[in-house]
């Protein structure tokens, strides 16, 4: 029983380290090769845990090999376009100027229901509103609407807006977030000044966000709430 316990702990660490090595892209959108790796990893990792007859190294070696191979190949595919196309495929246009490319839909084995569902998820209910729809290598559909149906932008209205970075989390549960102040070009003195205005200390703050303009939002801990 202990062997299974220790193996599960070790393999958990190995898998987490492997996923971190593969990078953040892995978590959001899976390319075909990454999907294969993910499926294989989950299967391989369970073998030495389920069956104590299988040496642990027989699980660890393939996990590290697959993940390293994936990282090396994805780096190579950045440099060599044919390799990238072979590994990930290429984006395909399924709607052009409001017209569905039926041959492409057939090639991709994409049903009209799949297409309409993807369009609806992007608040488009009429195919004729679409200028261009592209099936990405991840299987997701990107849509570019016709000019008449696109949302009006500041540029369209000739309104000048200011480009500013979004607010950054500066204090989280009574603790300063490292590196946050530098990213918005402010310093500790600014934090102290803002807190002094509200008669607060860092440890009293549940959440504080700051912007490069100097604007801050401060939410103190509830009185009697858990700190």
């Amino acid at each position: 029983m202990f062997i299974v316990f220790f193996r599960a702990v070790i393999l958990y660490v190995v898998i987490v380290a492997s996923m971190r090595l593969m990078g953040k892209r892995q978590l959001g959108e899976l390319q075909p090769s990454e999907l294969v790796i993910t499926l294989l990893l989950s299967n391989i990792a369970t073998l030495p845990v389920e069956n104590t007859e299988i040496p642990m190294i027989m699980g660890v070696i393939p996990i590290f090999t697959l993940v390293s191979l994936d990282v090396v190949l994805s780096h190579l595919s950045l440099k060599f376009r044919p390799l990238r196309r072979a590994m990930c495929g290429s984006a395909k246009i399924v709607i052009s100027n409001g017209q569905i490319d039926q041959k492409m839909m057939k090639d991709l084995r994409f049903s009209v229901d799949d297409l309409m569902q993807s369009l609806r998820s992007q608040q488009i209910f009429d195919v004729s509103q679409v200028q261009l729809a592209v099936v990405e290598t991840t299987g997701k559909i990107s849509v570019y609407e016709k000019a008449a149906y696109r949302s009006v932008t500041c540029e369209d209205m000739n309104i000048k807006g200011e480009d500013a970075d979004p607010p950054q989390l500066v204090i989280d549960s009574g603790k300063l977030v490292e590196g946050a102040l530098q990213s918005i070009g402010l310093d500790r003195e600014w934090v102290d000044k803002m807190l002094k205005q509200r008669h607060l200390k860092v440890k009293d703050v549940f959440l504080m966000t700051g912007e490069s303009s100097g604007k801050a939002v401060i939410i103190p801990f509830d009185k009697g709430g858990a700190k």
Partner: protein
Amino acid sequence: MKRLCISIAIMLCVVFICVYSVSRLKEGNRQLFDYISRTRQAYLENKDAAPALEQLTEYWKKHYLLLSYTTTGSGLEQMSLTVAKLPRLMQSRSAEFLGELDALEHWAKLVYDNNYPRVSAIF
């Protein structure tokens, strides 16, 4: 770039472990076969095979540890069972003694063959 370097380092480590384990297995098997051969010879020449068998048993304990990293449990159990039978078979001068020594040699060869990257072993 950091990820790429770590991945290449891991792959090199994996390759090193694979090469090292096969070479250790080959060397370990060579010694095991040597002990088996000495025991067999002493037995066939009607000499006292007990010291040679004792050496073989002692060596098996070390070799077992090495094999346990690369071999599934059932294969190892089979080999350990064979080694455990040997002293009793030798005392009774049983004809099975030589057969069990051959079986041990065969199992060890099989383990090495399964770990050596031959096309047949891979597929």
